[in-house]
């Protein structure tokens, strides 16, 4: 296993190099010139040149790329071009609020989706199954934005069950006062596609020969479902959760904007709008590394979910 992990870590280097190159090309191609934003309403070419020099964007491309690579390996992306705040500080202070929302979303959504998926798969073809699938289709057809706008108005303003928006310094207050409504909305939106997907995983397994054999042997249905079907369906579920996991660290831009959550999603959009390349670089690289590490972790977890899996 160790050899497998080392090999996979080694393979990350060319992927990371590709990511660095792609970000660099994209920023220089379509990223906009930050000097014109920073120069203010009235500026002359000399001031623009001075700003470009200070930001280092007047250097030859190869040199700028070299600086970028150095930043990746020293974990020092300097300061934000628009606010002068240290990029590392931006990431550290914004990731907390994002995780406060996104971890409960992922955990609760997965638990509910898996549970419901087992249940509807078990009663496949019945009215309950069909009604659930119809509800899921309808729920998936509505935009996330509509959910936010409507339920923020309903639960936050009309019923007053939750604050309309806000965030505090206290983790407990955030988790129990400000986070519940955004978490509920994110779950409501994510649940329908997850439920449909997981149901199909379970149905695939239920129709397998080994399930028929287990039933023929007279095993109770509960044991068939929970021990045999669940275990085998867990691998694609793990893959799906693994794919969603990096998103947990980036957050939901819409939720963060609508509920005034000082998270990373909101920061990324602001950085893009302001052509704040140091922040864009740091977030993208951090996300790429995270995605690769999570993929590795998920692959390792397959082994525990299904002992037949071997590391090659």
């Amino acid at each position: 296993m160790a050899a497998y992990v080392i090999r996979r870590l080694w393979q990350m280097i060319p992927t990371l190099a590709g990511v660095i190159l792609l970000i660099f090309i994209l920023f220089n191609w379509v990223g906009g010139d930050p000097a014109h934003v920073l120069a203010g309403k009235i500026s002359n070419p000399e001031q623009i040149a001075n700003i470009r020099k200070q930001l280092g964007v007047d250097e030859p491309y190869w040199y700028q790329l070299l600086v970028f690579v150095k930043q990746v390996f020293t974990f020092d992306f300097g300061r934000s071009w628009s606010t002068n705040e240290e990029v590392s500080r931006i990431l550290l202070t914004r990731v907390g609020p994002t995780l406060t929302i996104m971890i409960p979303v992922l955990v609760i959504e997965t638990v509910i989706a898996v549970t419901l998926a087992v249940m509807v798969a078990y009663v496949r073809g019945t009215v309950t199954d069909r009604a659930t699938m119809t509800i899921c289709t309808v729920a998936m057809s509505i935009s996330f934005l509509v959910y936010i706008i409507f339920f923020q108005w309903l639960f936050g303003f009309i019923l007053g069950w939750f604050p309309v928006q806000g965030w505090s310094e206290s983790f407990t207050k955030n988790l129990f006062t400000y986070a519940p409504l955004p978490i509920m909305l994110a779950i409501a939106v994510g649940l329908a596609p997850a439920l449909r997907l997981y149901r199909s995983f379970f149905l695939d397994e239920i129709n397998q020969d080994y399930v028929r054999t287990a039933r023929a042997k007279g095993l109770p249905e509960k044991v068939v479902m929970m021990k045999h079907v669940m275990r085998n369906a867990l691998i694609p579920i793990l893959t799906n959760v693994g794919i969603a996991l990096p998103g947990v660290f980036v957050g939901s831009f819409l939720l963060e904007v609508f509920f005034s959550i000082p998270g990373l999603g909101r920061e990324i959009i602001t950085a893009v709008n302001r052509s704040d390349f140091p922040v864009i670089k740091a977030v993208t690289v951090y996300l790429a590394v995270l995605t690769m590490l999570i993929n590795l972790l998920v692959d390792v977890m397959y082994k525990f979910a299904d002992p037949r899996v071997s590391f090659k």
Partner: protein
Amino acid sequence: MLALASAAADAQKKVLRVAFRTAETGFDPQRIDDRYSVGICENFFEPLLTYDYLARPVKLIALAAESVPEPEEKGTRYTFRIRPGILFADDPAFKGAKRELTARDVEYSIKRFRDPKNRSPYAWLFEDKLVGLDELAEKAKKADFDYEAKIPGLEVRDRYTISFKLKEPDYNFLYVLAMPNVVPVAREVIEAYGTDTHAHPVGTGPFVLKEWVRRSKIVLERNPNHRGYELDTRYADPKDEWDRRAMEQLHGKRLPALDRVEIYPIEDDQPRFLAFLNREHDLIDETPTSFIHQILPNGKLAPNLARLGVKVFREEQPELTYDPFNLDDPVVGGYTPDRVGLRRALVMAHDREAEINFIRKGQALTAQSPVPPGIVGYDPDFRTRAQEYDPAKSKALLDMFGYVDRDGDGWRDAPDGKPLTLTYKYNIGGDSRALAELWVKSLTEIGIRLETQPVQFADLLKDKKVGKFQMAGSAWIADYPDAQNFLQLLYGPYTGQSNEARFRLPEYDRLYEKSIAMPDGEERNRIYREMNRLLLAYAPWRLGVHRIFNHLQYPWVKGYKKHPILYTNFKYLDVDVAAQQLAMK
């Protein structure tokens, strides 16, 4: 017991809670230009001059200075005496000592605008302005900026006296010294915090920065070192209900009355508006236009808001939206009759009423000239039909200059027979897309094909500065309340800077140069009118609108009146704590 007493004292504190529609960037006054950060800085720092809170039209009054100086040497010299005894807020950079504001602080702060290291977005205020400052800035390109150097433009005569010597007469210079970021900072503080000056706004203003969760929460608390003041009612208009109310509510009070101000940047309209309705905030400035029918149905405050005692302050913004044509462009540019005719036809084809009624939801005034209401030099009687919506006249003009459909495809062609397709660039986001679509609809009606091109804000700025556009969307908000601030947008030598249209008309430039050397008066207004006429005749822009904002407050907010130039008014506000707490239950 102590904890209970402390909680009771906190409950009695006067706290104002407001939302800003855009997040701040930082609080180093010489290094920022966004309206919201500058607005917050109004509370930390004090310029030499400011505007009277109640006077309309706006009136300059002394703040850190003892008085508003008279121009000397034909408008090329202004001498200020700073009030002795003004103290900076305490800060570790002062090493425990009280720090008094002096003329050296003013000198240092002005120099900071031209230090290339600060890359100040307002450096242009002091470019080609003060004697000796340009030379100092030039030297700073090769070495560190020499803050010790003495220059005739910034003459510190004694501890409290500073005299500004200008290269050319400028009767608007006092307005520059009333701008909320042209404020004295302490050199020790700037040097102590180095690259982190945005987080340490230490000034002489009525509030200090108590807490800052970037882009989420900004808390101001009363500056214990501030001398305080009373509301000056000399220029108030007793017939104006806002003035009358402010005078009654603030009478005899020592200002600032608030103990604490909490500012929450909330970018999206709905949560900002709902937070106000939920009484999470005490007032909402610039109420989102998308909710205008809920706030002002048929132009009157909604009954549910009126029942709560909510007041609405309607403000015609000192700003202008406009669509520049690129005068260097081979298709729409130029000064020959056919090109001028084309631009005038395009302008007349634009359905400005539709813009105001549908896109701006009635919350805008038609711009008759570049100068918005409330600005010195604004002429309420100046009316023009040159930019009125008139598709028939537009078509006739196009026909007259040979912009007709030559190949029978239903679209007009250029006089030389080439296909005529124009391009309009606009910033992604906001109402810009709807405005671009209105342009398309308007020009389609007269048979001109228009392609729209949404671009990032940074790209739009760049493209307009380097002349890489044909038509584009633009806006300008007053830096100071004089028509010159708007009319300079068409001054030829500012091409590539603020003159996005790249308009270079010797007659206009001559009038502009003449106007800046003149004090406010009828003669200068006559020149301004002449410049307006040239603009309308050559049509380098389509004049847009002056937007109207609606500001709402709950009845427990006392002393409210919105100032057209200053963004915040916290130092003049008071809160009825009992009423506020009752409403929050």
